[in-house]
């Protein structure tokens, strides 16, 4: 916010730099949109790579198994948790966008729906992360079971 003093003009400057009448800019609506784009682009580029690595089943079982082995390493395993988190956010927020567009009361409840998808995301990611990382953690720090 610009707070430079121009005598009586100070107030006008402040109004101009923070547009009144928009509830969108800087609000949760903007940030869910930004995150939707970032997760969408990330998943798209992974999809291109993933079709290529799966295509190796047409080369030989050895070539496919060799590349798939890299998916089982600790660092890539962690990246997979990020991928699943990105896809899950994109799916849940997409559902929220659809409800805002098509459900008569959608626009009124869009803020509550943001908190709802955040809660669902956390509830699903907790067990999801546990099962995705179980093997890696056991291999690195020894099995406890």
């Amino acid at each position: 916010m610009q707070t430079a003093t121009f005598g009586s003009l100070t107030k006008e400057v402040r109004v101009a730099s923070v547009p009144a009448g928009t509830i969108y800019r800087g609000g949760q609506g903007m940030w869910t949109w930004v995150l939707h784009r970032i997760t969408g682009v990330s998943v798209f580029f992974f999809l291109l790579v993933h079709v290529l690595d799966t295509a190796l089943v047409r080369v030989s079982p050895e070539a496919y198994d060799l590349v798939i082995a890299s998916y089982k390493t600790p660092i890539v395993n962690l990246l997979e948790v990020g991928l699943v988190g990105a896809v899950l956010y994109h799916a849940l927020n997409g559902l929220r966008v659809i409800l805002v567009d098509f459900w008569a009361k959608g626009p009124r409840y869009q803020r509550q729906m943001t908190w709802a998808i955040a809660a669902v995301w956390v509830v699903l990611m907790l067990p999801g992360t546990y099962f995705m990382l179980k093997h890696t953690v056991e291999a690195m720090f020894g099995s406890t079971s």
Partner: protein
Amino acid sequence: MSTTSRSGPVSIPAPRSGARNGQRSNFELYSWLFMRISGIVLIFLVLGHLLIMNVLDGGVQRINFAFVAGRWSSPFWQVWDLLMLWLAMIHGTNGMRTIINDYAERDQTRFWLKMLLYLAAGFTILLGTLVIFTFDPNIG
């Protein structure tokens, strides 16, 4: 809409006068609708895929050539993967098209970025489809 220069003189056409001499199409409407319909279908296909491949029964650690061969011996998973490939690629390509239209300001940049996008998407869809239809479990 997408070809409007941002640096030209500002003019607002009259409502419903038709952009570009009446050559209006409903393409963007259908694109908007497609994103929502394919999105709902993809929620089931992709989240199901991620659950099976990454979470259940040991997750990614159990995936190898034999695992893929076992799945693609069933037409159900072949259709699942084929539908997921096509819908996800078109959904993703359309999203990337929107983003290119939003951020690439020069007409030339926009054009070539989209050509590159369509080339990559076409290649990936074709390759994936061929792999599903020509998969040979006895290739080794």
